[in-house]
């Protein structure tokens, strides 16, 4: 969709069959709604609450020509590059973290001109999702002004009609699909997130189709008992799947910490084998494990329990 095209975005929302009813389904059915060439926005942030179960199903279904956006893109971006599934990455930062250095795969694909890297500032991208969730074509900001990011993005500058000052306008970003992983949801799609909410609520409001995995499906009764904990209303959600450890080995606040040793091994393989390491990784963890339970089995109970223990320590629930 054209950046900022709030008219077309609302039309698509209105044309969509809507229901305030049941949203529960399977990963396969949920992800089946993604089309080749779609813009897929990914919730969470870097290695926090990444909707890995949904992303892996997206790879299993071998979608092509995707644009994927995320405020901080972790190695899931490398997966889609290695699978030849992505044409454009929209993000403010790409990598895993300082200890793991630059992304070898990303450098190869972007420097080689195979994949487009569209860079925004962190807030700039956040405001794009927010503008979309608000149903407006743009939001004004001071961020990015004067920097070279202005020249490589679809931002515009304007003279403020109230003050005459120069403003940066970031166009609303309306993804075709949003993939989110949350802590809890009821079968109607009312979602609860513990800890930092990242940009998930804005991404959900911005997208035409919203696919959610939840660590746990809770009763409608529990949602109604604590309505001030709901951050995404059911009428925004199209499909919902219960997937415990749905972000593992990334973290889910309060439930399990990211498994850094897994990141070490993943990066070490790439250092020695390059992109073939990623292909082998996908063969083993994605295509070799058709269900999320089979995927988790590759890590083993013990590892999951250990990471859950770390999480409890860090949120003082131990």
């Amino acid at each position, binding site marked *: 969709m054209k950046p900022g095209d709030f008219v077309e975005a609302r039309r698509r929302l209105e044309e969509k069959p809507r229901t305030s009813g049941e949203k529960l389904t399977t990963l396969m059915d949920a992800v089946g709604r993604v089309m080749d060439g779609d813009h897929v926005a990914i919730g969470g*942030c*870097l*290695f*926090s609450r990444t909707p890995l179960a949904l992303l892996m199903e997206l790879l299993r279904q071998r979608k092509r020509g995707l644009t994927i956006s995320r*405020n*901080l893109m972790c190695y899931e971006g490398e997966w889609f590059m290695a699978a030849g599934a992505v044409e454009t990455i929209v*993000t*403010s*930062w*790409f*990598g895993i*973290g*300082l*200890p793991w250095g*630059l*992304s070898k795969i*990303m*450098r190869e694909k*972007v*420097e080689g*001109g195979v994949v487009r*890297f569209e*860079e*925004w*500032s*962190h*807030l*700039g991208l*956040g405001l794009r*999702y927010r503008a979309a969730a608000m149903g407006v074509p743009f939001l004004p*900001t*001071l*961020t*990015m*002004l*004067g*920097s*070279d*990011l202005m020249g*490589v993005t679809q931002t515009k*500058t304007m003279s403020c009609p109230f003050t005459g*000052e*120069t403003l*940066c306008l970031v166009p609303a970003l309306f993804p075709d699909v949003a993939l989110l992983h949350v802590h809890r949801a009821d079968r109607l799609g009312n979602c609860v997130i513990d*800890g*930092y*909410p*990242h*940009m998930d*609520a*804005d991404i959900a409001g911005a997208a035409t189709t919203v696919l959610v995995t939840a660590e746990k499906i809770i009763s409608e009764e529990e949602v109604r008992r604590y309505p001030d904990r709901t951050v995404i209303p059911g009428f925004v959600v199209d499909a919902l799947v219960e997937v415990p450890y749905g972000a593992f080995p990334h*973290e889910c*606040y*309060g439930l399990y*910490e*990211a498994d*850094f040793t897994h990141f070490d091994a993943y990066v070490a393989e790439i250092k020695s084998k390059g992109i073939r390491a990623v292909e082998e990784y996908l063969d083993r963890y994605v295509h070799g494990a058709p269900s999320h339970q089979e995927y988790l089995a590759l890590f083993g109970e013990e590892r999951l329990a250990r990471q859950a223990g770390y*999480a409890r320590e*860090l*949120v003082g629930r131990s």
Partner: protein
Amino acid sequence: MSYSPSELLAVTAARQLFGVTSVFAGVGIPLLSAVLAQKTHAPGLTIVVEGGTIGPQILPGRLPISTNEMRGAYRAQMLPGITDTFLYAQRGFLDVGFVGGAQIDRYGNLNSSVVGPFKTPKVRLPGSGGANDIASLCRQIIVVTMHERRRFVPKVDFVTSPGFLNGGDSRSQSGLLFGRVSRIVTNLGILGFDEQTKVVRLEGLNPGASVKEVTENTGFDLLIPDRIPVTKPPQEAELDLLRSLDPERNFL
């Protein structure tokens, strides 16, 4: 007593936060410096991490690797969304922003996007993350970086995070009405900017560092005043605290 360049850098950066009430800090040395300041001369310091955590207290030995994880949110006071966290800076609530970059130029502009042309980069770097936002929106920006000739270039290949842009009043002319780069803290010393031209100026030398060493490690001509104060060497208490935070020396 002995200390590593990064320890020296962290201690020097921490001392910049005297009297500061809030600091927007990236992970690594900047966060270490903020925690050190909080535990010494700036007890009231509120640390803000861009992943959306306000007022965390770092658990020694469990330093966050990213800006958005439980280690960085340990005992935080608030966990707003990421966008809202940056908006507190845009509104003017956040005093100091700690930033770094792969390249920095004579006007304090930072590059963490590309080496070479943007569309056909020689090296595609990770990108801005929140660096551009912190440098654009906080009241005062302090650059924290190792002092290396390859980093200190005459002109950055790409302005990811604005310093004084082309010098003079070009920053405010661009619409960035607030915030300014006040200092560049390095392992060799402290750099400031000429009031008019906004060109980098040497303002302090760390113990053991010489003007010669600074100029040799700076890829452009920086202003050298006649008298340059020497900073107080890291104290044992500071180093002990620092090392207790990062016992495995992941960042030090």
